């Protein structure tokens, strides 16, 4: 008899993670903090994938690996995204001597 965790529990954790990430992205002015918030959002999505995968894997016609693959894809994407984003941040820093987003409003209309 395995310890059973319901789908809702996963989704609540995931939603909490998403809201934490969203909050960081919206409120922090430092681009690194924004990046960290994005990581949280991605992780919440990844958690959703895994959870849904676990709960639908025994139904007929469903590929049991599909959710896992989506999750792994997000992790790979997050790694690549982090590398590119950090490179952009360094470049921004070289140009502006800051990574505060409110100092970077050259394109405003």
């Amino acid at each position, binding site marked *: 008899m395995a310890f059973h965790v319901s789908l809702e529990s996963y989704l609540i954790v995931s939603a909490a993670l998403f809201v934490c990430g969203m909050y960081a992205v*919206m409120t922090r002015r430092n681009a690194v903090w924004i990046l960290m918030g994005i990581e949280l959002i991605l992780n919440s999505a990844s958690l959703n994938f895994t959870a849904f995968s676990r709960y639908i894997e025994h139904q007929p016609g469903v590929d049991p690996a599909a959710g896992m693959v989506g999750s792994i894809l997000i992790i790979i994407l997050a790694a690549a995204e982090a590398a590119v984003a950090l490179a952009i941040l360094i470049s921004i820093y070289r140009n502006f001597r800051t990574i505060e987003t409110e100092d970077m*409003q050259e394109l405003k209309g």
Partner: protein
Amino acid sequence: MASPVFESHLIFLIPLIPGISAAILGLTWLFGTRLHKTTVKMVACGSVFISFLISAICTKALLQLPENERHLTQTLWTWFAAFGASPAERIHLPFSFEVDPLSATMILVVTGIGLLIHIYSTAYMADDDGFQKFFAYLNLFMFSMLILVLGANFLMMFIGWEGVGLCSYLLIGFWYKDLANARAAKKAFVVNRIGDFLFITGMLALFWGVGMQEGPHGGFFSMTFRDMREHLPSYIAAQENVRILGIPLITFCTLMFFGGATGKSAQIPLFVWLPDAMAGPTPVSALIHAATMVTSGLYMITRLNFLFSLAPDTLLVIGIIGALTALMAASIGLFQYDIKKVLAYSTVSQLGYMFLAMGAGAYTAGMFHVFTHAFFKALMFLGSGSVIHAMHHALPHGVDAQDMRNMGGLRKYMPVTFWTFMVGWVAICGIFPFAGFWSKDEILWKAVEHGMAGKPIWYAIYAIGLGGAALTAFYMTRQVVMVFFGEYRGKKIGEEYLAKHAHGDHGHGHDAHADDHHEEEAHELHDPEESPFAITFPLRTLAIGSAVVGLFGVGAWATHLTGIPNYWNAWLAPVIVSTAEVHHARTLVESDRLYAQHGDEHATDAAHGTPAAHPAAETLKREPAHHAPDKGHAKADAHAAASGDHGGGAHHAPWWLELGFAILSVAVAAASMRFAWTLYQNHPERPAAALKQYAPGGPKASSPGGVFYRWAYNKYYVDEIYEAGAIRPVGTLSRYLSLFDKYVVDGIVNGLGYALLVVRWIAGLIDKYIVDGVTFLGFAKFVAWFGQRIRSLQTGDLQGYLRWIGYGALATIGFYMLVISK
């Protein structure tokens, strides 16, 4: 012994080398490079010299061939070709040159005398700014002239024909800054265009008429002279069957050709340009307007003699026009004071003699006069140039250096010019044994022969010719006396002029290389001086030529007395169509006609093989037996050929009769010279006094003499007649046409323009208010307004954007939850 194949490969170089030289000198001039004068001299004279050498090589190669095979042909490429259904309809026109005795003679004259004149020009033009340009033109002329005489077909000849016309124009107008010179050039060009138009008309008519006729001799489309001659039956048939404007084809075409010749060779009615052409530099007058270009009409007639011999009517016209021109031009020459104008009218007159000979069918005699005339007339022109050159330096600017009244006594100052001019003088007057005697006498004798052959009009032509000879002797003597004998009048006239114009206004003579004189020089009077060696050398050479070249073509009486044969006639005999050849061709045409009529019954007509199967002309090769190699026979043939095919038989007149006529012409010339000498040398005041009496307003103005004087002095009003009869009507017509142009054509064009303006105005309104106002500007304004409204949304604030994303997401989810999933 060199093989002729080698020489025939050289032919194209004869025109090409002067052509290259012209290109070098002309293009460098055009692009602003002024070559050193020595370079120009070397290139210009050198190219002509090489050309002369190659001509001599080709002529030598001709001489090594048997008499009937004397032709070298070089085909460079096919100019154009057209292919019809049958072999006869194929047209093939090669770009090819041909040297035969006739063209060999011409190229030797053109390059030989041309070379002397080039040398002469190096001194004559030495002070001219356009030195390089002059030689470029002169070489271009050599190029064109050599193409004219070497061309193996009609179109090649026509290229040269037009080319020499162009060079003539360029060189007459060489000092184009003087309006009179430019007008003279234009006149020469326009008058020549008329001739050229006739020429090309004849050419096309011939091509069309011969090719399109029905029957076994139709369908012959070649324009190559040698082919044409071998297809003589085609032309005979065309003469009988084809008519244009009611005139038999060949007669029509030859008349057109003669029309072309009257333009190029300055005969009535198109001679008016030649006296004006004296506006060009004197070497040009000598080369183009005396020795070479003006004889191209004669060359063309001789080249096409097989056609002209088929058209006796044309020949009669040529004879009459030639004789009249000879007399008329000579009579105008009597009253000219310009040293070059006298020679110009003399040239027209001498050309008249040549045409007279052509008219008599005496093509070789005519060409002989072309040959001798080239020597003595070039000599006299160059001599006059030498005189003008000296007078220019001797006289002040405002005094005409070409007016013979300002000369006199020059024999003391210019001995070489004087002596050489004397040779030219006796040569042109026809004094035994100088060149002009033999050639002119031969021509007059041919006229007499024709008269004796039962054509009495030729006695009249002979009489006119003899009268012209007397006039020639008179005006040439007058010129010689006025220029070289008596006292030098220039000094006195010059002093009077300077006294009158103490502050010297600067007019200048016609032949002005006056531009580069310095002002101080113009106020000093020099004695005339002998010209430099580059001028006297050609004079000496030509003087020797004028003295001896007549001996190439001595009269039959001289052959009889001394045994010297007439080399000239024998040399040109292969070129001239013989009586037997024409007769043979006629027989072929005749038998073909019989065959066509009775062909069915006599399928194998013994008289004529199989005429329908192959053109009959193919069987017509010039009879080898006719030109048998033994000397005496060939000579007789030459004589027969020279006297023409029609009328024939006349050449059996006894030698003593010919001698008698020769003595008569010498006597007439000598008497005329004596008379002129008496008038102008012994009693110089008499002609002036007499002319005063006969002049308009004088007591004898209305006597026949006065009328003659007035007419001749005014050149028979030919220019005025043209002015009134052609130029002014054409001008008036042009003015009316220009009115049409101005009011009708321009009205239509302008009306259309105004209509378009109105349309444009309306279109502008539409564009402005409808297109711009409603659509494009409307859109633009809306976009701008909207942009203004929403531009504040773009804050550049990253989190702000995220907020909008968030609102958007919430709105989407809310919409989904509240509306769609209900």
